[in-house]
């Protein structure tokens, strides 16, 4: 009968001695740090309309997990609700893990805020388990984390419970609880069954009159296994302080970013590009060895006088070494000298990959990846000749004036078809936009407004008064500095546009369409008694 049951995992005889450190309310700590809020802010993290976590200040007001956001706001009127972002927790916990990894190897992140370390090595190195725990306290305190709890026991389960049991300790002693080896079963004995987090098993055991882990551990292991199967047997082992789980240390991720320091500082761009080229090659090679490619990176340049220029660069495919050097160069060149605002030599260049993707997702096909690869190489060549902003793709956005309706995106800044990455939030072209131009769109839209003159049959300039009435019908017009005088064949207007009258930057103007005798059509603007050519239907 027993032989029919699946085998239990090996290594059950000895539980791994585990040091578990716990930063309570890590999501709150992460959010406070990210948004630079003071620690006493009543803060609640909201996940799907319910409070996911709340700060101690909010808890004092009666906010607790699972409360609806409106109810929580009623209880704590100063409550700051923020959306819960799991990735933020992981991102902000990463430096903590890295810091602990520098003092003791083999850290397992159970979840952001809770980490397990094998206690054997550190305790021997630092002299004792409590000494090792004190080193962790000191390291984390240096990072500004003061509320840290540590439990040391046999196995991760008992160690976690020990870390949580530090709540019972006084506030002025260090929050450390060491359960001596072999005493974990005794420590866990008084805990209720609920901490096993196995609801079905808990209900069943309670009906059998078993109410604590101690009672459960007192049962014979073979009986538990026969009655409750493998899950029950594992839970029984946890309750007996013989945790089947061990600490699985993570492999620290490779350092993908690259830094180059220059001494003496470099003042010329070509010098910098040359000096950085080999480093850029190493950067790309490191990524490739890790099986990754970088599709977005962050370049920061530091100068001798302490200025810094930071920018994020995207790539339509992925960066190779030349592309990285080009981005550094463009960031330095900008469109003019004031763009990067650096006045002294460059001492430090840092390139941090922001988005890395699996190399296999970007691998070339057997017969190449088609024409788009060639397109990209050709355009990258033109960009390296003329600068990043010289090669553009265009998007039609919303707006009344034609110049507002076209938005240029430098090639590579936003992948084709993805409009969110544009520098300016795009206006939706599907909105009604009253006052926009009816009929076919003109083929020439002047990037710079071209001055024009419109006169009536007596030679007086045509104008529109405050009530929007025309002074006289237009009879002749000329466009541009050397444009000849055209007789008006037909015309329409004025079409008033009153954009954002509440805003000083808003514009009040009138639009006219004019067709001359030869059949060419023009779109003219009258703004502040001056005529401009907006567009030509050529």
């Amino acid at each position, binding site marked *: 009968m027993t032989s029919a049951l699946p085998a239990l995992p090996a290594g059950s005889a000895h539980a791994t001695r585990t040091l578990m450190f716990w930063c309570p309310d890590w999501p709150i700590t992460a959010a406070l740090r990210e948004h630079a809020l003071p620690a006493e802010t009543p803060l609640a993290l909201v996940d799907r309309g319910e409070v996911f976590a709340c700060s101690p200040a909010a808890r004092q007001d009666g906010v607790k997990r699972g409360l609806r956001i409106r109810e929580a706001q009623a209880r704590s009127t100063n409550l700051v609700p923020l959306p819960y972002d799991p990735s933020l927790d992981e991102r902000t916990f990463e430096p903590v893990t890295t810091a602990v990894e520098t003092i003791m190897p083999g850290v397992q992140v159970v979840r952001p805020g809770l980490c397990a370390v094998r206690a054997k090595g550190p305790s021997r190195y630092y002299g004792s388990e409590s000494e090792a725990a004190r080193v962790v306290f000191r390291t984390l305190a240096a990072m500004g984390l003061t509320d840290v709890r540590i439990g040391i026991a046999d196995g991760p389960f008992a160690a976690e419970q020990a870390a949580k049991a530090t709540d019972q300790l006084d506030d002025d002693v260090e929050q450390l609880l060491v359960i001596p080896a072999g005493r974990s079963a005794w420590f866990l004995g008084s805990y209720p069954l609920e901490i096993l987090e196995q609801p079905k098993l808990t209900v069943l055991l309670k009906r059998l009159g078993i109410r604590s882990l101690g009672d459960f551990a007192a049962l014979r292991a073979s009986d538990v296994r026969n009655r409750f199967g493998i899950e029950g047997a594992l839970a029984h082992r946890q309750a007996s302080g013989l945790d089947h789980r061990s600490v699985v240390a993570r492999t620290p991720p490779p350092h993908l970013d690259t830094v180059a320091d220059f001494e003496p500082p470099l003042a010329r761009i070509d010098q910098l590009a040359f000096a950085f080229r080999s480093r850029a090659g190493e950067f790309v090679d490191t990524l490739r060895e890790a099986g990754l490619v970088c599709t977005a990176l962050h370049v920061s340049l530091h100068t001798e006088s302490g200025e810094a220029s930071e920018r994020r660069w995207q790539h339509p495919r992925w960066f190779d070494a030349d592309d990285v050097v080009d981005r550094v160069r463009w960031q330095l060149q900008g469109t003019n000298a004031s763009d990067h605002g650096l006045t002294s030599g460059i001492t430090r260049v840092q390139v941090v990959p922001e988005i890395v993707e699996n190399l296999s997702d970007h691998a070339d096909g057997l017969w190449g990846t088609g024409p788009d690869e060639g397109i990209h190489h050709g355009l990258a060549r*033109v960009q390296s000749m003329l600068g990043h902003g010289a*090669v553009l793709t265009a*998007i039609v956005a919303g707006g009344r004036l*034609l110049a507002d309706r076209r938005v240029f995106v430098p090639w590579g800044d936003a992948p*084709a078809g993805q409009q969110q990455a544009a520098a300016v939030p795009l206006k939706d072209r599907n909105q009604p936009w009253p006052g926009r131009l009816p009929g076919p769109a003109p*083929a020439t839209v002047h990037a710079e407004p071209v001055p024009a003159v419109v006169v009536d049959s007596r030679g007086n300039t045509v104008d529109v008064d405050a009530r929007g009435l025309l002074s006289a019908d237009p009879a002749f017009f000329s466009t541009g500095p050397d444009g000849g005088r055209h007789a008006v064949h037909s015309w329409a207007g004025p079409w008033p546009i009153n954009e954002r009258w509440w805003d000083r930057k808003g514009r009040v103007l009138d639009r006219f369409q004019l067709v001359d005798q030869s059949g060419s059509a023009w779109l003219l603007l009258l703004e502040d008694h001056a005529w401009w050519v907006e567009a030509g239907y050529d």
Partner: protein
Amino acid sequence: MQAVTLDSRRLPTVPALARILPGGGLQSGGSYAVRNSTSLAMALLAGPSATGAWCSVIGLPDFSVEAAQGFGINLERLILVPDPGSQWLTVTAALVDVVSIVLTRAPEHLAPTEWARLKARLRQRGAALITLGSWKQSDSTLGVAESAWEGLGSGTGHLRSRRMKITATQPSGRLRHAYVGLADLQGTPTGGSAPSAAYTPGAPGAPDSGTHTLFEPQLVRSS
């Protein structure tokens, strides 16, 4: 013409323009000048763009992308280089390598050797070059000879539709013309009756230069 050999490939062209272009459409490796109309140049770009070709516009900061979209040009495959500065030739040559059709402002001056090299590159890559502004070295010159807008009165209405007489001149002096509406160029045919009529000057009885009125293409066909 050497450019229009039998084995030269043809790029997709808007039907209204295909009948007046030599060889029945845009030839890959060909060069075309458009005298006075950005709309006409857009119509030439629209054919290849609709079939997924990449297009490029060099040195035209006033190019209206909204109108281009109206002509059916795919903006995701349209590359704009508004200001190539002094490197016009290098940029144009680099883009001829990768895109199917290049629209650019006619260069101020281009040495015959440079033009020959660009031309060779065009033929090798199978791309077509369209220049805005007259340029003698091109295979064919297109232009709007006459134009009339409908929809506008004196102070009323708005521009709705346009009818144009489009001429195509070859360096040999052969001239063809067609009457088209703006909607024909945008690839939305207006209905059953053929809106355009093309003829060659060599056809018997056909008047040579267009002194006739613009809205009577039937008159031209019957004669």
